[in-house]
């Protein structure tokens, strides 16, 4: 059985850090804050590695199947007997895997920030926000019921908001954090309705019970859920779609992705932690958590998920090729990779060999977290050195930043899917799952993985090769000390070797052991595409030439459209400002101002006029009062004596 105290401490330690640094940081821990946060997180990381070891190798497996354990459960809110919201901790392969990923990446980011954020005025506040985020993300992955996941879901949204807007004196950062919050909140509305539908149908919030009730075709709950329908679609399908919308918002799936590139306004380590490795994959985690429910819905919500995933992956990859801000390139690449995870879930089905996509998706989540965090931290080191996000200001940095260069190269190879780096293995499984299920998605994904290699190496060559570095005579510090290099090296080791982990032995859709298939002949196409992408990037960007410019000019209209992110932001502005404001906002404002406010104003006016009249009675003339008094007494006496019956 899981050790409850250990597991409870994992999310609690960052929370303690958050409280301590948030309340007393500014006063007492101005310089020590970072070390306190990092120390607490180190403890939490060790505990989660211990938990993972114990779970996977000691008690987790019973008869060859990984079991779900409830490590802690108490009633938090009871509506009526049987209808209650619990707070609990769920231990199963997915949550344990996520524990390891979240704490490890968070620890790397904590250590890295010691160097990156050094000298910042609000250093302890920064660490308290990181603690809050880590706490909420860990709470999210450990949640044992769908309502608890929603609470932590909103908490990660808040911490993401706080950290994107960390440089709050920059107007663009303020705009970006608002945008991120509003877009994800909008998606979360769908999630909330989805939760209400699913839990209403199932009569419970608890994951295990909910999945059990909604997936056994003979249960009453399942019958209710498929009988109720709206617009010809059953309640079960609606619930699943709405929950997916929440996931898509958080995971920046097309068309709710617009917040992610702007979220790069936050400090770079934050982008590595939240907007690359952990929070944005929450949507994938959510779908994986409720996977049996998604798998049973007809018509298949999984089909929708698959198409949304592949469309996001392709669009993001195309846009990434044209961006010049290195963090934005990485943001679009993140979106593209999450698209891969999503469509991998979409092409999967529940149980046994058919669950290949499920395992592949979570495998990719795992490896992506490592190499994408590495890419962001590397980009952070570059930005730290150059003091600019623009690719044009860089070039020829390989001599100046040798360690960053080497680790960045490993990460690029990993994301491009070159064997034997981590990305190769996970992407391979995803492509295999797609190939077996849906050929259209497979070819689109193949094309995208070629593009991935191209834009990553475009970035790589532009930053580290191309023209010699011109430092404009500014005085330069070195690469940023061991605190910044250590996470890079550790993550690079991870990115190089994580692919060899037999992931199918740990995580599969039904907990049984899944031997990940590996066909050498199948890998030829993806690797070839990757190498072609790298080759094209090499030709275009290795040296300073105008081949790329010529190509972009020949693609004129298309290039401009892509460079402007396909005008999706503008489309949103058009829809919100022109259509929603004019058709709904303005009439609603009119109703509010003239009818609702008007009614209240009218009541006020009437009261005022009446009291104006009544006021005259109260003249202050003593004798007038006496006359009122006597007259009323007289009238009352007349009434009581003669008229009272």
């Amino acid at each position, binding site marked *: 059985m899981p050790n409850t105290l250990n597991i409870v401490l994992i999310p609690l330690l960052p929370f303690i850090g958050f409280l301590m640094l948030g309340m007393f940081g500014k006063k007492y821990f101005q310089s020590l804050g970072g070390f306190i946060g990092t120390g607490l997180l180190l403890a939490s990381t060790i505990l989660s590695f211990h938990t993972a070891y114990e779970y996977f190798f000691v008690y987790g497996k019973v008869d060859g199947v990984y079991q779900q354990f409830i490590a802690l459960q108490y009633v938090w809110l009871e509506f009526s007997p049987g209808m209650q919201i619990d707070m609990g901790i769920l231990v199963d392969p997915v949550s344990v895997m996520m524990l390891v990923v979240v704490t490890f990446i968070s620890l790397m980011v904590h250590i890295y920030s010691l160097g990156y954020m050094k000298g910042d005025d609000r250093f302890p506040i920064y660490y308290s926000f990181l603690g809050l985020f880590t706490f909420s993300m860990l709470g999210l992955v450990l949640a044992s019921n769908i309502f608890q996941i929603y609470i932590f879901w909103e908490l990660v949204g808040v911490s993401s908001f706080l950290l994107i807007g960390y440089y709050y004196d920059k107007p663009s950062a303020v705009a970006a954090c608002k945008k991120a919050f509003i877009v994800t909140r909008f998606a979360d509305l769908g999630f909330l309705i989805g939760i209400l539908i699913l839990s209403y149908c199932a009569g419970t919030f608890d994951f295990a019970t909910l999945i059990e009730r909604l997936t056994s075709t003979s249960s009453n709950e399942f019958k209710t859920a498929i009988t109720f329908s709206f617009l010809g679609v059953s309640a079960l399908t609606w619930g699943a779609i709405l929950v997916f919308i929440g996931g898509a918002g958080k995971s920046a799936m097309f068309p709710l992705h617009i917040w992610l590139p702007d979220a790069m306004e936050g400090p770079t380590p934050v982008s590595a932690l939240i907007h690359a490795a952990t929070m944005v994959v929450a949507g994938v985690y959510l779908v994986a958590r409720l996977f049996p429910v998604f798998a049973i819905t007809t018509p298949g919500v999984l089909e929708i998920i698959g198409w949304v995933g592949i469309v996001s992956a392709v669009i993001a990859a195309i846009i990434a090729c044209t961006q010049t801000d290195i963090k934005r390139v990485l943001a679009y690449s993140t979106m593209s990779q999450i698209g891969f995870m999503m469509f991998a879930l979409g092409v999967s089905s529940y149980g046994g060999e058919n669950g290949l996509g499920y395992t592949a998706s979570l495998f990719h989540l795992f490896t992506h977290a490592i190499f994408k965090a590495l890419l962001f931290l590397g980009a952070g080191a570059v930005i730290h050195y150059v003091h600019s996000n623009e690719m044009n200001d860089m070039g020829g940095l390989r001599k100046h930043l040798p360690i960053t260069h080497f680790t960045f190269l490993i990460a690029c190879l990993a994301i491009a899917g070159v064997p034997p780096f981590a990305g190769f293995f996970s992407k391979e499984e995803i492509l295999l799952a797609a190939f077996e299920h849906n050929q259209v998605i497979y070819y689109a994904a193949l094309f995208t993985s070629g593009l991935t290699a191209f834009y990553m190496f475009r970035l790589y060559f532009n930053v580290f090769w191309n023209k010699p570095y011109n430092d404009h005579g500014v005085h330069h510090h070195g690469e940023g000390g061991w605190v910044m290099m250590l996470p890079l090296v550790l993550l690079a080791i991870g990115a190089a070797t994580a692919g060899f982990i037999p992931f199918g032995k740990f995580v599969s859709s039904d907990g049984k052991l899944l031997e990940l298939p590996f066909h050498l002949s199948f890998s030829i196409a993806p690797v070839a595409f990757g190498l072609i992408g790298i080759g094209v990037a090499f030709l275009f960007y290795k040296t300073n030439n105008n081949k790329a410019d010529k190509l972009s000019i020949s693609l004129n209209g298309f290039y401009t459209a892509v460079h402007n992110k396909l005008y999706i932001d503008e489309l949103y502005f058009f829809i919100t400002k022109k259509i929603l404001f004019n058709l709904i906002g303005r009439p609603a404002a009119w109703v509010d101002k003239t009818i609702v406010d008007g009614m209240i104003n009218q009541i006020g006016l009437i009261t005022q006029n009446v009291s104006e009249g009544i006021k005259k009675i109260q003249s*202050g003339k*003593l004798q007038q009062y006496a006359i009122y008094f*006597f007259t009323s007494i007289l009238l009352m006496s007349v009434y009581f004596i003669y008229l009272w019956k």
Partner: protein
Amino acid sequence: MMEVGLYHVLFVSIALFFIGVFGFFTRRNLVTMLMSIELILNSVNLNFIAFNKYVWPGKMEGMFFTIFIIAIAAAEAAVAIAIIINLYRSHSSINVETAEDLKY
């Protein structure tokens, strides 16, 4: 020689009462108004005495009430005069119309 009966006394009492009311309504001098109130009180006193004497001759309640009212009237006069003096100090007048601004 006609015996003085209950009705005679009541007539005097009513006359006193209305004289008092009239005075209270028409005079502007606060002291005069106070005197009018005394008249009203005294008409009530007369009523009590008359009913006690003619209707329940063996009882004393009417007398007691009358004495009680006289005592209260004395106290009331003291309070009223104190108010009037204060009014005079602040407004230099004991005209009731100058006290109108007290409503604010």
